[in-house]
């Protein structure tokens, strides 16, 4: 191990930053040059939004090892927070948008605490059920709260309309990068290891002095926060929100992405979210009938993956460009069969 050449940390950061900058600039050039039509831009934005949703759910599912079934509820909270804020806020433009994203994350995070503290007292299936319940309650509240309050807040079943559309390629790209970076650095820290230890063996974690309740709540809140951000981006992308958008089905759709990608693998979530968002559009362009069977294909895929590869396509593997380069440098001395590491390494 010692004889291997290591790329020093600052260089690693520089490589990653350079790569991201290239992507950002290339994306902008392609859009302004008219190489990416507005139709493809829309797909691109959706991909980004779903990546954030999937990566954030992965914190609770993959890293913490719980199975929350109400992720769409947090997206709804974030989306409606941002939507209402943007409509009411005297500010306009980028400052308002950034504020709305942060606010959406915070409010969703608060909901994460409110839901997480009671829910996390339960284990396994019961946690799944109770989060499902909370998710549905959020939907019912969004649907009916206007009748109780007596004034228009959420727009009820008709939806919250006229949300300013600020979501753009750049904002989604930056949000994806920030989300992945924050979750990656979190997981690679002592806090992240504590979260992983709960997934691995809760009793052993407690006997190591890990405050399991605290870290479960932390993971849940981080998960909810970024779900809120993705909901906010969604709100400002569509311009209209309907409670039906955030039902149980949406939660499952995001869960499918996380599971197919491999629970605990950030790159897995990113790839799965990308593919599963693009595939329906692709199918649609081939034939409408095939596109209609999209959900059928999804569900068969889910069952087949669970039966033949329960750990998901990527397992807990995580990709790191710098590690890859490092491995290439050390190729002659590479020692085959080094055990995979079960943690985030994606930047």
């Amino acid at each position, binding site marked *: 191990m010692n004889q291997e050449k290591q790329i020093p940390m600052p260089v690693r950061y520089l490589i990653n930053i350079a790569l991201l900058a290239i992507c950002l600039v290339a994306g902008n050039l392609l859009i302004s040059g008219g190489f990416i039509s507005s139709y493809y831009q829309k797909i691109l934005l959706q991909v980004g939004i779903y990546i954030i949703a999937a990566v954030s759910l992965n914190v609770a599912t993959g890293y913490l090892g719980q199975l929350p079934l109400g992720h769409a509820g947090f997206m709804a909270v974030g989306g409606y927070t941002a939507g209402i804020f943007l409509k009411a806020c005297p500010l306009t433009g980028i400052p308002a948008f950034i504020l709305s994203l942060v606010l959406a994350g915070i409010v969703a995070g608060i909901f994460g605490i409110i839901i997480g503290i*009671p829910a996390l007292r339960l284990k396994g299936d019961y946690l799944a059920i109770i989060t499902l319940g909370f998710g549905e309650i959020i939907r019912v509240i969004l649907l009916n709260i206007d009748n109780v309050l007596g004034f228009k807040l959420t727009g009820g079943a008709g939806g919250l309309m006229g949300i300013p559309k600020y979501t753009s390629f750049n904002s989604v790209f930056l949000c994806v990068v920030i989300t992945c970076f924050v979750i990656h650095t979190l997981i690679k820290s002592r806090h992240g290891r504590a979260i992983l230890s709960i997934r691995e063996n809760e*009793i052993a974690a407690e006997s190591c002095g890990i405050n399991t309740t605290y870290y479960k709540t932390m993971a849940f809140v981080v998960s909810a926060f970024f779900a809120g951000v993705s909901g906010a981006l969604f709100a400002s992308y569509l311009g209209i929100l309907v409670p039906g958008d955030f039902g149980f089905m949406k939660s499952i759709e995001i869960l499918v992405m996380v599971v197919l990608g491999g629970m605990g693998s950030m790159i897995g979530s990113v790839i799965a979210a990308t593919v599963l968002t693009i595939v329906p559009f692709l199918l649609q362009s081939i034939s409408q009938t095939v596109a209609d069977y999209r959900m059928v294909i999804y569900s068969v895929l889910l069952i087949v993956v669970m039966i033949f590869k329960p750990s998901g396509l990527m397992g807990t593997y995580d990709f790191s460009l710098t590690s890859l380069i490092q491995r290439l440098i050390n190729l002659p001395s590479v020692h085959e069969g080094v055990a995979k590491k079960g943690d985030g390494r994606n930047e």
Partner: protein
Amino acid sequence: MGAAIREKGDSGTHRVSICVSPCIHLYYKYRKGRIYLMLIVSQLINGLQLGSIYALVALGYSMVYGIIMLLNFAHGDIIMVGGYVAMLTIAAGVNPIFAVVLAIAACMILAVVIEKVAYTPLRSSPRISLLITAIGVSFLLENLAQNIFGANAQPFPNNKIIKTSSLNIGGVQIGVTAIVTIVVSVISMVLLTFLVQKTKRGKAMRAVSEDMGAAQLMGINVNNTITFTFAVGSLLAGIGSILYCCTYPQVSPTMGSMLGLKAFVAAVLGGIGSIPGAMIGGFAIGLAEVLVRAVGLSDWTDGVVFAILIVVLLLRPTGLLGRPMTEKV
């Protein structure tokens, strides 16, 4: 909202009647009392009707959970399949009684096939994989139905199975459907209890749910017992399906998901894995739902059902009659 407004109207006439004459007032009070009583009785029966369907479906969830610790998300969609089979066979001119039998049989076969194909290969995998598979199966059934039959609800020929008339018992109008539903459910539950408590099969089921490994060592065929449990659970679901379709005479691809979720809530509420718990939970959810609707908050029904679930789970994490789970260290 409707009922709330009506109530306000009633109290208005009440106040007027005081001014007119104490005699009329007394008469009104008597009549109002009777009307309220009859209203309560008929709502109670509605609640029992809905509750007994939930209980039947909840039993399937509960039995499967008891035996392989799986929340069988697909259970609700089996009900939907039963509904479609009954509707289509009746539409094809099959004798309604035969159609009902066919629908129930279809539910059982489907459940057993799902168990063999999707759940058996995963028996030794982590529970989360099994749960996700069940979600996948549920999704598959729902979307297949949507693609085959279309997303819209179709009318169900309920009057061909149970007459839609109603009886007048002591001044209370009770639908035949309600009576049949309650009676059939209660009989099914009694038979199930007999099956589980008094027969050899039932003993095997209890043994497997207690300790699969030990049951196997005692010479019990675990695979058969699990399949049998699925079959019985979906038999009840099939019955529930017919009764549900007769109560709300329409079928749609997503009809199973909400019904399933509620029944599932009922099973959890009563203590999942417990048969009497599922019955209690079913009736509790049915009554609660009708009550919420009766006070004029029908939009909030789903929310209230889930809120009850959350409160119960927080107070008793394994439901009303569930056994506490402990991990051996």
